[in-house]
């Protein structure tokens, strides 16, 4: 089951770390970084059903 309730402690801190990662990058570098991050996170999740549900959620 995909978790859709808040699950990140210190959401503001996470969000700011996420954006800080992009400091100084070009638009293409940022896109590439986001792609790598998605793949890293997807591997951590592993569960194919959860991943499929996550993709549907993002598409919606």
């Amino acid at each position, binding site marked *: 089951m995909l*978790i*859709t*309730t*808040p*699950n*990140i402690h210190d*959401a*503001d801190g*996470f*969000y*700011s770390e*996420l*954006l800080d990662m*992009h400091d100084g*990058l070009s*638009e293409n570098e*940022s896109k590439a970084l*986001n792609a790598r991050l998605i793949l890293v996170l997807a591997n951590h999740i592993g569960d194919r059903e959860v991943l499929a549900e996550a993709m549907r*959620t*993002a598409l*919606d």
Partner: protein
Amino acid sequence: MAKIFEIPLYPYTRNPDQDSPKTNRHPVIIVGAGPVGLAAAIDLAQQDIPVVVVDDNDRVSFGSRAICFAKRPLEILDRLGCGEPMVEKGVTWNIGKVFFDDRQTYEFNLLAEDGHKRPAFINLQQYYFEAYLMDRVRVLEAEGKPIEIRGKNKVVSIENNDDHVSLQIDTPDGVYQVEAEWLISCDGAGSPVRQMLGLDFVGRVFEDNFLIADVVMDADFPTERWFWFNPPFNRDQSALLHKQPDGVWRIDLQLGWDIDKAEEKKPENVIRRLKQMLGDEISFDLEWVSIYTFQCRRMEKFRHNRVLFAGDAAHQVSPFGARGANSGIQDSDNLCWKLKLVLDGIAPETLLDTYDDERIYGADENILNSSRSTDFITPKSAVSRQFRDAVLHLAEKHEFARPMVNSGRLSVPCIYSESRLNTPDSTKLPTSTRPGAPAVDAPVNEGWLLDQLNGDFKLLFVGINGESPSVAGIHLDVIEVQPGQNPVFEDRYLGDEDTAIYLIRPDQHIAARWTSYDETEIRNAILRAIGQE
């Protein structure tokens, strides 16, 4: 009828220092009769510390400016004897709504729990806020308290010496000389005192402009905070609508960086923008218009020898989160009891360095939060805008994204967890009342707890009896609470324990706590809390 901000509330009159053959020295002079300076003056005068406030103006703030006052400052104002008229006049609100484009993304309710005397927030124009503080000043004067407000008194030079501060003050009758043992500089973001002393003020400038308009209208918008990201009436920018007393509405419109300020401020352009937002059928009057940019920055230190900086003079934040005036009031709250103990010779001067420690911690927390809000509201790059819009998109349907939506993290009380004035906690009492936290309000003994924490050190005995130890020069009041009568209070102060003792500072922050009585430990905690250890 003249508006309250058009009337000189503290007109210039000649003062004894101007006619004195020698230079007089006052214990405390405060520069600036804004919210922070007046709060500090009231706090000191209530404790019989003679205080003189000088201001180059003679009336309250022009325009509404700070409008959002949080629960903690209201509690401080209660201690200063002027919370009631503010809350009565103010607009109490709890609900906030966030819109993205033309849709509501979500709403939040700030009122988390019952059992507090004061609401999460009130909206009140700064001119009323200052006027009620002035009313309180007049009451204290009538009671013979040593407080004096000098209008049209402008500091033109300052000398910061080892044991006093020397000032030259300009008035309609010319310049006079005066000295103070301590000077509190509450003279705002542009602080002339800070500039005259050549002190630093570094930080981050945000490249943006906001149009701020106070609009008088008969509208049936509910009493809520409405925030728009990228609305149809202000494309690619944000907007805020908030209610104030007297049918005045605060409207904030983000304009972007590259604008012609003089052009944007023209009434016909402001009215055009407001009509786009409100529609043609609502009629309104403009009370006040301003365009502001902002910075997030603070001084490296708030104490410089005999000069203590407070409020915007010491630190500035973006307006998102109402952390400006609210934090200034907490500065004053933190400073005044320490200054009193130092002036009375009970605490060492180094106690004032803990003002620096505790309030710099507070300022950094405010700067961090308000910078993050600003980064969310004004994305600084294409990718940060993409993430921002993704969060807003997802938040409409999915709860998980809502904590990431940041239209301002509203001011919450500062907890001095790491303060050296705290005694380390070894209890299993509730975390919300841990050392460093401001005492959490609760109904107790047929009243409110915070109304009983009225300016001295207190020992709160819950379900336990004990003597109050005498510590040199410290007046300690005892409050006793019997268990089994105040369930909300017990939830907050006992948790799973049967007994508790709390040592509470004059600013209502908790300094130490125990579950059993030990006179030596209490004595040591008091000494620690006044900087003697």
